[in-house]
């Protein structure tokens, strides 16, 4: 780990406050507990539809989002729970949405892949691979045209990198010098296809070829992600145009809930184990404890708080009613 709580982070304007580090920890734990609870309720047949878990990737969303203001916008992916929680999303309304309940963010009409919270600048998870890229870039266009101090962050995967929409929108962002940060979550696979076998060259190289500065960072180290994102976010916020960040990470739970064991035969247990070793939460925890700025009890308290938050959220969701059938015809048009 190269960044430290005490020392000034290169590229940042000062030391990382302990408060921020603890907030990182809290949010990563929240995401982990959220996702593992999804795993549980999905396995028990309580949750309908598809679920793509963020477990193992928590450092990316948290490291990036802790650089953002509430008024900044993000777009997320099919694997969106982590981004939403990192940006401040309410676990209650998220779980309710996952269960298709009337109290969900989208009153049950969207489900896991379509959660939006306009107040928090969450412009949406998206079921189309690369679907958030146009939206985030367009939001950056709004900010520029309206002279507002907002930036956009588009999270997207290594798989999405190969969709033409990345190329088309990043080119426009570059020409127009829009305040948008492209965060590529490189977890090695798009579904069951290895990124190495489907991608010629790298994300950063492709961004740089369009004059977008780019960095690659260990996506399992939240401090490094935070630091790199600080660079990217400042770049965008200062009007220097788009920036690109590749975060290397791994999804422990497979592509989606149907991808368990050897169903799709594309990855080995050894690989999974190796990445589990690199758990981003454990890494931060060990670092915090070794820095002696935090006690084990403090962290355990956070764990417990979050556990309670998540359990209360699930309970809320489960007890909520399904939407009224009249909802079918509502909201097609404004």
């Amino acid at each position, binding site marked *: 780990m190269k960044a430290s709580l005490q020392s000034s982070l290169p590229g940042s304007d000062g030391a990382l406050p302990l408060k921020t580090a603890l907030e990182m920890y809290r949010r990563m734990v929240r995401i982990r507990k959220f996702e593992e609870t999804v795993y549980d309720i999905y396995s028990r047949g309580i949750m309908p539809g598809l679920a793509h878990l963020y477990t193992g990737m928590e450092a990316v969303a948290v490291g990036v989002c802790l650089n953002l203001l509430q008024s900044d*916008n993000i*777009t997320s992916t099919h694997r969106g729970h982590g981004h939403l929680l990192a940006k401040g999303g309410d676990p209650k309304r998220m779980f309710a949405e996952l269960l298709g309940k009337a109290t969900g*963010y*989208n*009153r*049950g*009409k*969207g489900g896991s892949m*379509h959660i*939006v*919270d*306009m107040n928090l600048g969450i*412009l*949406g998870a*998206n*079921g*189309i691979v690369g*679907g958030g*890229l*146009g*939206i*985030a*870039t*367009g*939001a*950056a*266009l*709004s*900010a*520029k*045209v*309206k002279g507002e101090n907002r930036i*956009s962050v588009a999270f997207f995967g290594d798989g999405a990198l190969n969709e*033409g*929409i990345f*190329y*088309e*929108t990043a*080119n*426009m962002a570059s*020409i*127009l010098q829009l305040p948008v940060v492209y965060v590529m979550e490189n977890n090695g696979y798009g579904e069951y296809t290895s990124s190495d076998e489907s991608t010629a060259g790298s994300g950063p190289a492709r961004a740089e070829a369009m004059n977008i500065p780019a960095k690659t960072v260990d996506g399992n180290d939240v401090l490094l992600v935070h630091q790199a994102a600080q660079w990217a976010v400042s770049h965008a916020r200062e009007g220097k145009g788009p920036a690109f960040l590749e975060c290397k990470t791994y999804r422990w739970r497979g592509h989606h809930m149907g991808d368990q064991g050897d169903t799709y035969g594309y990855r080995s247990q050894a690989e999974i184990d190796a990445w589990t070793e690199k758990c981003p939460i454990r890494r931060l925890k060990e670092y915090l404890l070794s820095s002696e700025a935090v006690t084990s009890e403090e962290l355990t308290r956070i764990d417990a708080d979050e556990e309670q938050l998540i359990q209360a959220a699930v309970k809320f969701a489960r007890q909520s009613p399904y939407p009224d059938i009249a*909802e079918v015809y*509502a*909201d*097609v*048009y*404004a």
Partner: protein
Amino acid sequence: MSMLERAQERELTMREAINEALREEMARDDSVIIMGEDIGVAGGVFKVTAGLLDTYGPDRVLDTPIAEAGVVGLAVGAAMTGLRPIVEIMFNDFLPLAGDQIVNQAAKLRYMTAGQTRIPLVIRTAMGAGRRAAAQHSQSLQAWMSHIPGLKVVMPSTPEDAKGLLKTAIRDDNPVIYLEDKMTYTQKGPVPGGDYVIPFGRARIHREGGDATIICTSSMVITALQAAEVLAAEGIAVEIIDPRTLSPLDEETLIRSAIKTGHVLVVDEGYQNYGVTAEIAARVAEGAFAYLDEPVRRLGAADVPIPFAPNLEDATIPSTQQIIDIVHKMRA
């Protein structure tokens, strides 16, 4: 329309009427921006956006790269966050390049989010055959757009309608597909003065008549009106109705006329199979069932990619003569 507006009426071409609507809406509301290929410096390949860059500057009039999906994608994001973008897609044949952005993003976001967002987006695009532009530049894909819930679809046939409907489209909080028949750009017609809007979902009866109903869209209105002239001379009084918006569709007015005349022909320039004429025919056949003296007839473009050779292309587009022939047959 007020007396004043009528008094201020001028003759404008379709192109001028559309340009005026754009200009006035951009003046009225500075969240309206326009983006597309060659729309700025060049004023658009059909010159519909001429002068806008000079007036509103490059922040609000964006010459984009050739990247239809990207352009619409940006517009969707901009629409969600406070702007009211108008996108020009040069030819509607290129809508399929932006298909995902239109269908899976723009059309669905409001619904999927249970009304948390609105998408005040207008996509203007040129359609129609007749310019010898061949199969990739001559289509009329309104059936595709009309099939998708969440989109509104507008097809003006006169300068007056073009202006009033475009203003409504720009002020609408939903994605609106606005199709301009490229053969009509130079067509002239009276346009009222002042700021007026035309509501969606109200058909326009261009000509009344009790013998047969012709429901027709866009430039087919002109073709049908020509046929009506000829038929009138023969003593056949044809009613000509333009739905003006395909979605929402003013079914009521169409069915009322069908009930009155008992003979109905639907004409649209899209491919006939699984096209606009099918939906309108099916609705009218259902709504006026007991009153129809014969089946609802349909006339769309020939179900072939549009050929280049002038004689072949002409044979694919619904013509005045075909309309006359069908009406003769209907009345036989």
